């Protein structure tokens, strides 16, 4: 019973979800059954602003895309630490820890930079897919 009590606040959400789901199904069904269906060869072709597609529509991306995207994500996300540091720097200074905070961030940045240099020298940034 306790579990039910605990979950009862979510009943409206559940009802809403059900309602939305049923509504979607209803509309889709209505369109399928009620709409007129007269398919001709002309209607199946690409229309006005398109040309017939060539080859597999699921073409594969080069691994290079992943590589660059990943490198971006990693370095981008590491920079997330800089924002709180920046906003708190004055507080640190007030406590007499300004230099400590500065050196701390410097070593962090240096390590990141080392990573960047490594990636660079490894040739991961050179774009020749």
């Amino acid at each position: 019973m306790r579990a039910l009590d605990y979950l009862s606040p979510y009943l409206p959400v559940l009802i809403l979800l059900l309602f939305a789901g049923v509504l979607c199904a209803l509309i889709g069904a209505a369109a399928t059954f009620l709409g007129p269906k007269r398919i001709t060869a002309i209607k199946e072709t690409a229309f006005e602003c398109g040309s017939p597609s060539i080859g597999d529509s699921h073409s594969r991306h080069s691994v290079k895309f992943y590589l660059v995207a990943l490198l971006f994500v990693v370095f981008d996300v590491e920079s997330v630490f800089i924002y709180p540091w920046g906003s708190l720097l004055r507080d640190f200074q007030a406590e007499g820890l300004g230099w400590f905070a500065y050196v701390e961030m410097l070593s962090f940045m240096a390590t990141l930079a080392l990573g960047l240099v490594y990636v660079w020298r490894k040739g991961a940034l050179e774009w020749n897919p």
Partner: protein
Amino acid sequence: MNFNPGDLYGVLPALLLAAGALVLLTSEVFLRPVEPDRRYQAWVAAAFAFAGLWASLAQLGDPAQPLFAGAAVSDGFAHIVAAVVCAALFLSCIVAFSYLESLRATRGEFYALALFSASGMCLLAQATDLVVIFISLEVMSLAVYALCAYLRRGKRPAEAAFKYFILGSFASAIFLYGAAFAFGASGSTRLADLAATVRSGSATTLVYASAALLAAGFAFKVAAVPFHMWVPDVYDGAPAPVTGFMAAGVKAAAFATLVRILVSGYGEGGRWRGLIVALAYLTMLVGNLLAVPQRSVKRMLAYSSIAHAGYLLVAVAAMGTSAPRADAAGALLFYLASYGATVIGAFAVVAIIERKLALSGLGDDLSSWAGLSEKHPALAAAMSLFMISLAGVPPTAGFMAKLTVFRSAIEADLVPLAIFGVITSVAGLYYYLRVVVYVYMVPEAKADAVQGGRLLSAGLAIAGCALIVLWMGVLPGSFAALAQSGAAVFGR
């Protein structure tokens, strides 16, 4: 907010290892054009590992003290684990040298990754804050995942790494969820604050849910049943020197953290003991049982690693009572050290066998071990020694380790568990000795010999492991004293 630069000294081994990794990465990209021969990297890595070993042993006598406002701690327990990790790294570097050389696969990243993961292991043993534990865990794990996939030959290494990665990340997420619960329940991520919450009696359901999730996360890392499924596939697919390092290092660090979380975080409640006992029963049974039908030595060693996790869990369970915890902790440390030395040696021998098989993309089979004694009597003798040590037969390290663990279990009133352990360990002889039989079997006509060459460094490591195994078995006094001094932090 305060910061004591001396705290950095407390994490010196981890710092040394991380610095070594950075040095290697830098040299890999800058020295490469100048010095195309990259063999020096193994020796640089070994030197840093040795420095880490030296640092952790040098700190052994220092009094225990919290670091970084309680986020980590510098105590004997952590130093011993760090020493085991560094020694494992040192030996693994030497083994990997000849292995990679003969496969022509030496690249700087290998040793850098190994150093990074060892750095994570050392931190893991010291961490007393759930977030720090998580970060160290990831530093260790990510590097090890990459090491598994390092050998880009055939499907097996990459696939092993993939499985390890998926399951390991899954377990990390579960651990982290537990950490979030613990934070919610106590308002802090420090283990000490968690302990205070447990002690105050205001522990809620949330606390116990967090205990379960945290324990599950590390039960995965130590390969306790039913979180063991990854072990055979990963051990099988990864390059043998990596497997040896994983078996020794990851296990040591993960067990150290499991103990920290349970004893330092949830110790007073003591409710976890029964569950660890249950895990220990299950792990010893399943590990030993499933090792029996294995025909691949690597897979057999993987299941044996599960079984050994079971014996180590016995020691952890023994720490869950009011009986002297230090005894059980000492037994745990001794077991970790002895298992590490044995398993690195065993995988070093496997590495020598595997080099040939790796080129043809085959898994190893017992039949490829037949007649090893004819070609390489010393190698065969060493392998036999490691096998009987794993089986816990005197006079080897394995026997001493099991003896101390079971004894601590008996002192903690876990007599049925100890007896079950004795029975399963004796049953384990069956599959260990099968390897010995094959090694000494008269080979059939087409005995494919392991070719020599570049055996020297691996041979040195194997000899070192064998020496340690024998030394710990015949004269365990000094090792046991070290373990006891390290375990003293857990008090009487």
